[in-house]
Every structure is written in C-alpha cells, then in structure tokens.
C-alpha cells in the first residue's frame, strides 16, 4: 500500500510544480513514468506514440499543475486521468483500423500486469488484479474495451453484438463491484 507520507509528498510536489519548480516535475516524472507509460503503451499499442503522448502529458502537468485540487482526488487519479484522456484523444485521431483489429485479438487474453517493477504500487496492483478477476467476464470485458480501447457504450454494444441497455448495465455493475471490492481492501484508493 502506498504510505501516507509518500502521498503527501506527491501533493507537495504538484504544488511545487505549479510554482515552476522543475526538480519537482522531475520527481513526479520519476515516480509515475513507468505506470503512465505502461498505460499509454497499452492504449496506443505503440511505444513511439506512447512516448510522444507521455511528453505531452508532462508538459501539460507543467503548465496546469495549478489546476490540481487535492480535495477532488489523489495525484495518482489526476495524472492517470490526464494521461488516459490524452491517449484516447490520440487513439481516436489515429483511428487505426489495424489497431482496432489487434484489439479484438487482444481482448480475449487480457493480461493483467506482470511482476511490478514499481514496488510502491505492487500491492495496489495485486488488489486491482484480484478485484478484476472477481468480475464476471462480460462486465470485465465491457470495462476493458471502454478503458483501454476508448470505445463508447454504443461502440461496445456494436462490437459485442449486445443491446445497448445490456452494455450500460454491465458497465455500471462492473464499476460498482470494482469500487466495492477495492474500497473494502484499502483506504488508499481515494474513494
């Protein structure tokens, strides 16, 4: 679990970045680069595109750190949301048919993280992995298609050949279950 002290430091680092402290930005980069880059590679399926977007993300952190509000969530949530949003924008812009085809093949073998190099988050990673393993397959698949492939509910319905209402129900149920499972395990996920 992430120690409370390290969490406080993340908040302080973002405040320092907001005041133009480039060393603080370097610390944030060191702390989050492997998690965010892993996420970007997973979404974009290209190291080159992912590196490009990772650079954009940290330039945005540099310019907009003042927008971070710790009352609304953890630095982890803010950074991940920023990175994913940029990646999905890039993905939709690329609109690569090839990639969508690959996503179909990949979907059947959703690989959860291997041994985490980031020791701080190893336990959280295990908790997420275990929580996802407890979701029914159809719920998990809907969440994965939305989160990593950037598909909307209608696109997921078309993709799975399921009614839109069913997809909405699966997603809501999956997210509710995920939140319950993680909330029971840890107070450090921020909800």
């Amino acid at each position, binding site marked *: 679990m992430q120690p409370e002290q390290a969490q406080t430091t993340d908040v302080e680092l973002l405040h320092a970045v907001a005041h133009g402290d480039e060393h603080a930005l370097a610390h944030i980069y060191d702390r989050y680069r492997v998690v965010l880059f892993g996420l970007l590679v997973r979404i974009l399926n290209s190291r080159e595109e992912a590196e490009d977007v*990772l650079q954009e993300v940290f330039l945005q952190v540099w310019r907009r750190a003042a927008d971070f509000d710790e009352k609304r969530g953890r630095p982890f949530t803010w950074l991940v949301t920023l990175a994913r949003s940029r990646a999905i924008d890039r993905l939709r812009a690329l609109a690569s048919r090839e990639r969508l085809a690959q996503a179909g093949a990949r979907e059947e073998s959703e690989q959860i993280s291997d041994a985490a190099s980031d020791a701080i988050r190893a336990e959280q990673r295990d908790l997420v992995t275990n929580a996802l393993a407890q979701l029914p397959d159809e719920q998990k698949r809907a969440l994965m298609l939305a989160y990593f492939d950037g598909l909307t509910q209608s696109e997921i319905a078309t993709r799975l050949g399921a009614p839109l209402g069913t997809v909405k129900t699966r997603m809501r149920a999956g997210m509710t279950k995920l939140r319950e499972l993680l909330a029971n395990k840890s107070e450090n996920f921020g909800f």
Partner: protein
Amino acid sequence: MVHEEYKEMLSAHALAALDHEAEQALNQHLSHCATCREELDQWNAAAATLALAASTAEPSPKVGERILDQIRAEAQNAQPDSAAKVVAGPHVLPFKQPPRNVWQSIGSLGAIAAAVIFAALLVSLIILWKQNREAHAELTKLSNETKSLQEDLARKDRAFQMLTAPGTRMAELSATNMAPGASAKLAFDKNGHAMLMAKGLPAAPSGKAYQLWYIVGNKQMPGKVFTPDSTGNGVLEDQMPAVAMNSPVFAITLEPAGGMPSPTGATYLHSAS
C-alpha cells in the same frame, strides 16, 4: 431526465464511455449539481485504478530529456523576472551611528545638548526610515512595471516568432449575437503552440472568465481561460491537443473562472467549420 438517472451515468462518464448526447446532457447537469460532481470524483478514482491493470513499461531516457528541454525553452522565452530581481534587490540606506559617551566628557550641560542631538538624530532616523520605505515602495512599483513590460515584450516577441514561422496557421473567430463588436484571431504553429488575440469582448462578470475550446467533429476539448483587459482586448497562449491539429474549429464561451471540462456558457466567438 431526473437526478437519479444522471447519477447512474456517472460511472460510465468516469470511463469516458458515454455517447456524445448523453455526455453533453450529463455535463450540463454536473455544472449545477455538487452532489453528482463529488460522486464523479469517486468514480474517477475507481476508474483510475484500472491503469494498474496494464503492465508497467520504461520509456526511453530521451523522453525525460525532451520534457526538460521544452520547459526550459519556455522558461527562457518567458524571461522569469531575473532582471526585475536585480532592480528589486536589497536597498537599505546607511544609518549614522550616534556618538558614544558624550555626557561623561562634558557634564550636565553637555547631557542636555546630547539629549537634543539624540532627539534630532531620532527625527533624522525616522525621516530616513520613511524615505527608505517610500524609495523601496517606488522600486517595487518600478520593478513590477518592468516585469509587466518584459512579459508584454516577450509575448509580442513570441507572437512575432510564431506569425513569421513557416507552417504557422491562422484562424479567424467571428462574433455571435452575444458580442456583436468582438473578433479574434488564433495563430498556431506545427507544434500546437496556440496564441489567441481577441478584441471587443465585454468585461467578464465577477467569478467568470472566457474559455477557449478546440472542436473536432462533435468533441469539444477545453483550452485555457482568460479575462480581457479594460479595453476588451485579451491575449491567451495555450497548447492545442494533438487531435485538434488537423481540422480544428475554435470557440470562446463564458464560463466559471476556473474553466470547465465541457462548455456550459454562451458562445461569444466561433471560427468557421
């Protein structure tokens, strides 16, 4: 739609999986429902944990170097008040030291004289202190003016560099009925660095500011916020989302001063599709 129906959409919104119309409707609801905004924060935290389901990966060391290079280049362009610091440096006028052991050497008359001299010195000190304080305030004011002029000059220099750089494109924004006399131009270079120059905008009400939007298809991506000066002129620099580079449409709306993730206020300026 009722509150409960919007509430059921929050988890999908955290995954950015809502279809466009639903997303627009929910954003409208979120702009005035604090309960849903708070709950959305919690769903966002839950959604973010899914990032941990991806394997970690190490980017090339060049990425970190490129980030630092770029922010240093920006800092150099912005000229952070190094010159101003020189102007505003320590400014302390030297105080005279009072003479010591005066009355011991010249007796009681001398003591009275010494008291008078002491009082005169005290008055002098107070006058000097006041002058020092006024001088310091004047220097601070001058240094602020210098800083403001330097920033203005740096911005004009950046505008010049941008407008003369190969590949820079220009878009014109026309006024809507909200501000018939307003107009704006937006220049953006091949790296997505954008500069908006607007004029004729009405003063933003207290707690409100104008926000720039990048529109691609039916997706509206938020830019930075700005408030025009007393003459209605406003300048804004921003980094365009990469996705908006190919066929961008721009709009300016009036929003809460902190900016919004999706537009909620009236449109004042809009570029051609």
